[in-house]
């Protein structure tokens, strides 16, 4: 196949991704002075203080946690959809994204109504004479919000890969004496791996930088890296510091992915390096 199909995207990429990224780098490596700006590493030095590292660590932890839960819930769902439990797969697929067409803020406010002390869940529990749950304003609530909002991004790519796995391969494995667990572990799962990698990327990366979820469901008590950056850009007006946090985070993620694929050895299509 030709590679020329890449050209429209290459132009787009340079104009709207690479050029803006240089702007971000410019802000990250300069500090404003009276006559303009000078090059400096000050913004980066500031970031490596314990308090900011603590925020970064918490963001990584919560994003990872949410991604794993999305995978645990999403993979079986994608498998069921790809199988023959439903006749109208297109409808089931659409039903996964339709909730996300309702506005994000309204959905999150609705979660408040559900999780509150006198909220839907606790009213139901009280009617069943069960003790009430205090979920809201915990890290658990933040994770729940992330899982809720990013689940379709895990399910859809896995589903699209599973939906056309060659039946012959699966049947052959069965004929050769593998039980269904072995078929899954040795045949289906490895074949679906590209979809899983895409899903994990589309959940983990946005989860890392979200800020409205942690503010509303975490009660503002769990500052995440996204909150920190948003605060710098809007409230404090310190674009340099905000940009440098963003740059550090991006470098960190891309590097760690590179190292991971280095140890795995083989070149993968969707892997980073």
């Amino acid at each position, binding site marked *: 196949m030709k590679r020329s199909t890449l050209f429209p995207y290459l132009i787009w990429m340079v104009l709207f991704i690479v050029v803006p990224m240089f702007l971000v780098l410019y802000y990250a490596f300069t500090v404003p002075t009276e006559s303009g700006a000078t090059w400096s590493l000050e913004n980066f030095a500031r970031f490596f203080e314990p*308090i*900011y590292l*603590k*925020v970064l660590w918490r963001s990584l932890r919560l994003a990872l946690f949410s991604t794993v839960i999305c995978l645990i819930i999403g993979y079986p769902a994608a498998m069921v959809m790809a199988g023959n439990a439903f006749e109208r797969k297109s409808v089931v697929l659409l039903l996964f994204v339709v909730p996300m067409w309702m506005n994000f803020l309204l959905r999150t*406010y609705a979660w*408040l109504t559900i999780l*509150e*002390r*006198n909220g839907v869940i606790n009213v139901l529990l009280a009617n069943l004479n069960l003790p009430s749950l205090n979920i*809201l*304003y915990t890290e658990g609530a933040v994770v729940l919000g992330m899982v809720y909002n990013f689940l379709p991004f895990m399910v859809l790519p896995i589903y699209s890969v599973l939906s056309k796995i060659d039946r012959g391969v699966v049947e052959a494995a069965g004929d050769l004496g593998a039980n269904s667990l072995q078929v899954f572990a040795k045949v289906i799962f490895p074949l679906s791996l590209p979809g899983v990698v895409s899903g994990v990327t589309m959940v983990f990366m946005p989860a890392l930088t979200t800020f409205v979820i942690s*503010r*509303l469901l975490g*009660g*503002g*008590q769990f*500052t995440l890296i996204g909150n*920190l950056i948003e*605060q*710098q*850009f*809007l*409230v*404090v*007006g*310190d674009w340099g510091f905000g940009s440098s946090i963003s740059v550090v985070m991006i470098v960190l993620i891309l590097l760690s992915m590179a190292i991971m694929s280095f140890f795995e050895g083989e070149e993968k299509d969707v892997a980073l390096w």
Partner: protein
Amino acid sequence: MAKKGRWMLCVLALVVFSVLLTGCKQDKPTLYVYNWGDYIDEDILEEFEKEFNMRVVYDTFSTNEDLYVKLKSGGSTYDVIFPSDYMLTRMLNENMLEKIDLGKIPNHRHIDASLMGTVYDPKNEYSLPYMWGTIGILYNTTLVNQPIDSWDALWDSRYAKEILMLDSQRDSLAVALIRLGYSINTLDKQELAEAGQLLKEQKPLVLAYVVDEGKDKMVSGEAALALTWSGEAMYAISENEDLAYAIPKEGTNVWFDVMAVPKGAQNLEGALQFMDFLNRPEIALRNAEYIGYATPNLAAREMLPDEIRNDPQAYPGQAVLENAEFFVHLGDTLKDYDRIWTEVKAH
């Protein structure tokens, strides 16, 4: 392949169409207004359009900071904007505002003299107040059975996990500073550190740091006490009669949302006409009734129902005003505020 070509053509046509749409001009002069969402009775806009034969393009923003960044970039032009007081000083410092000619706004004489010429714009050369209010404690009388008159209530361990604070560095730190007897615009690092310490001590008692959702939480009885702006408090009380609002005796912050004209406005004449229109007593009255916040327009206030007009919480008297402070923009010191606030929240 032909099919794909047709597809592309359709999309291209759509794009061209949309560009044309934004580019089209009408004969009528246009007035670009930038305000908070749902912060005007929109029928008033239509009446203005009819009377002055103008087209009003009305856009909305959600925070002062969003407004600032948007205007600072220079990408969009507006004729009338509605920032809050501290944002006005920031814009003034950075030379982002156009002077307004009060002579062309005769209805400004209806505005309460004690709310004119405040520190953020001493001669009202750049702005006129639109709505105003205080900051105080909104509390649920079924959950709090003592009278509330002091900021100490927000540090009272009897209300552990029943207190809502604001996820806003200036406002939350202001309360701590007032309680310590310092200025809410302090530049002194030592004083700020003390205020930060006070907020850290308070943190175990706080249920959540909320922004806009706090009022609804108070309405549904989720918490006993909340640090709230008076406008939001009035709204919450109108939805739930068990709620009450108190302005603590130690002092408060008086805030304003103002009308101003940004540099580069294309329709200065129209902007002044619009500001004058909004200050007509009957228009200001309707707006105050729709929004529910306190109006600085005395003539409009006189026409409000007695129980609102004379409500000392909505319209506090001279004594409260004298004991109150206004926010000013802090410039680079804001970084210190941010640092301390981040520490409080990560504590």
